């Protein structure tokens, strides 16, 4: 988050015509026979706050986890900034061929050299070992899946669903329903971990303490402190688990903001808070949207929050989308009232 973004221009009042940042298309996630999310379509528009609500067990968190790359969908896909990132894998059978290709070529060369030229034992040995080294290197690359490997797969028409860390790299920051801070790290360190993808210093830089690494450490520490102040935290060196509950929620948001997201996923950010803390939280979301122009996707049970800050609300029940629209529309929707209160309430 740069200085400029923090003090940037304010949001337009309406965002009806804005492009979608995130789009879920016919997204289905089944756990065995249980269909947790069923054919859900929805989108988050640039600069808007979209809420995802529904009774307990409606599939909100499952949907969140699919978006964040934690689990692969059964069918359907997620598009983020126009790129299909999460979907069921395609042409996966091609990948193992890719793994043995370099080693296979080396061994083929060994065979050719052995049969054509005069067989020099040293050359043969070196070639065979080179093949083995290539095989190990390719397999480890495949396990690590660096960005260039993903691009290579894409070029070959192989699609693999993004992992959580790929989604962060793509620009999705998230918080968790039950706070998952790094409990035994300080508040500052938590935010620094959030900056992980922004930092470019390699382990070699760290070992040699290169000027690049030292500069980066210093600037990221400043940046982390600024983020902590931004969400309203002062105790940088406190262990995360010693922070009061409300501060832990704030720290989680600061940590998510540190990933420089283009979309922020918040899973019940005001759960367990009292009304005044909730108000402070809502003010923070408003500021984040306004000052950083950052779209937010929110799961929330507190209707005061949902109705107070959302631009658009999507209602899930039993894994299906039953309503969508502005808070006022959704509030008036008979199906929503039925889902929450039962048939007799209508």
């Amino acid at each position, binding site marked *: 988050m740069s200085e400029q973004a923090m003090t940037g221009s304010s949001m337009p009042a309406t965002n009806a015509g804005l492009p979608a940042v995130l789009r879920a298309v016919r997204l289905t996630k089944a756990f065995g026979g249980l269909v947790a999310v069923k054919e859900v379509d929805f989108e988050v528009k640039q600069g808007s706050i979209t809420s995802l609500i529904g009774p307990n067990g409606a599939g909100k968190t499952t949907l969140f986890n699919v978006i964040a790359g934690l689990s692969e969908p059964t069918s359907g896909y997620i598009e983020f900034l126009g790129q299909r990132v999460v979907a069921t894998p395609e042409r996966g059978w091609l990948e193992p061929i890719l793994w043995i290709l370099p080693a296979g070529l080396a061994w083929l060369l060994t065979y050719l050299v052995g049969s054509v030229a005069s067989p020099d034992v040293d050359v043969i040995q070196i070639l065979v070992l080179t093949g083995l080294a290539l095989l190990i290197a390719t397999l*480890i690359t495949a396990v690590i899946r660096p960005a260039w490997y993903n691009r290579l797969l894409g070029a070959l028409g192989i699609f693999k669903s993004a992992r959580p860390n790929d989604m962060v790299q793509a620009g999705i920051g998230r918080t968790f329903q039950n706070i998952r801070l*790094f409990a035994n790290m300080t508040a500052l360190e938590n935010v620094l971990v959030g900056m992980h993808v922004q930092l470019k210093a390699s382990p070699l830089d760290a070992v040699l303490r290169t000027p690049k690494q030292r500069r980066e450490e210093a600037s990221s520490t400043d940046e982390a402190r600024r983020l902590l102040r931004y969400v309203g935290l002062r105790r940088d060196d406190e262990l995360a688990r010693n922070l009061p509950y409300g501060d832990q929620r704030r720290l989680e948001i600061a940590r998510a903001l540190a990933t420089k997201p283009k979309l922020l996923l918040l899973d019940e950010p005001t759960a*367990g808070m009292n009304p005044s803390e909730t108000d402070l939280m809502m003010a923070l979301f408003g500021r984040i949207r306004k000052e950083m122009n950052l779209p937010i996707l929110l799961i929330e049970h507190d209707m005061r929050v949902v109705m107070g800050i959302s631009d658009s609300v999507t209602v899930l029940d039993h894994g299906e989308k039953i309503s969508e629209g502005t808070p006022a529309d959704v509030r008036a929707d008979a199906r929503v009232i039925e889902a929450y209160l039962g048939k007799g309430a209508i």
Partner: protein
Amino acid sequence: MSTPATPTPKRPAAKRPQGLRLGQTATGRFFGRHQSFSIIVAMSIVTAVLPLIVLAPGIKSFGTQNDFVDGFAQAGVWVLLAIGLNIVVGLAGLLDLGYAAFFAIGAYTYAYGASPFSHNHVAFWLMLLVGAAVAATAGLLLGAPTLRLRGDYLAIVTLGFGEIVPVVFRNSDTYTNGTNGITALYQPSLPQQGPLFFLPSLSFMPNFASWVPNLPGMPKFGLFAGSFGFGNPWPYYLTVAAIIALTMILAYRLQDSRLGRAWMAIREDELAAASMGINTVTTKLLAFALGASTSGLAGVYLSSKLSIVSPTQFGFTVSFTVLAMVVLGGMGNIWGVAAGAFVIYEIQSQGLKQLNLLWYHQANAPSFHLPIVNIDLSTVNFLDYQYLLYGLALVSMMLLRPEGLFPSRRRRAELHDIEDAGASNQELVEA
């Protein structure tokens, strides 16, 4: 619409103003800023002071100063192993019970690189790098299939790997000489001339060895403490001290870097770490590889010192002992595990010998003559009770001081704040 009832978590009572403030004092800031320099100075002082132990009163001499120095040189191996395992277990939180495998791989790499058996003779100094690299590759190979495992399951798989490697070395007779092991490994050599001792000696360089005065009680101190050999432990002792200092610097620098934070984050909560953009695969593999490379260094050094490698040297007891050293020393604290390893090794190898010397066949040793058994303490061989002592030490430590003898500040806070606060916020939230 009704909001589902969320149990309001209990808030912790008024906050105690206490944080993890590191490097807030003037000395703390100095050592924080000049860490590598501090490590070199500290290691130099330790290296210089340790051999003076023979002058201490009350130490029964069962040998010469050389015997003590030889013991210290041997202890250095364990210090190295503990520093390496600390990266895997203490920082990244991956319980590795097969650590001896990488030790074996390092040792056999040296045996293959410098022994009459293999007809190769590569310089020891180069083999240190090769051994570390080979062990790191083995670490990657072990790490890759175990990435999805954690806790007990990871421990079981690494335990299996630790058992497999010595068996492979024992059974591949053609390459490792089987159960007999490879003997008569070349010992390191150090050309007496020139600071670039690993290069062929340059004749125009002055003979630095002649410049170093002979200090009383310290034969030929300095880099030029004579040549490596069974009768002269000094060069080994100095070499291992230098390797330890270097490894410590690297470990500290990694720990304080982006990678170190990623390790800690994975230890704390792997899923949250992945959701913060950390590639958990790369991070864990790096922990395995770097831990293994330290073990490989120790293996190369030990095999060159003993001049023999055999599969029996690298059993489960090695993995277990190193783990016990890390836990006893204070997981996560580099100086702590190094000190823990040194203390434990010295107790088991020298301390017990000292006890034997004090007790054995002493007239005034107590003996109990009971109706059935005669317990005569004067005939007890304390060396036989080494593992009993381990067990006792571990159990009593878990009860009295679970964070280890020399814990890091973080670890101490981790284990003691919970008692103070009753339950952590984290647990309240998740309840």
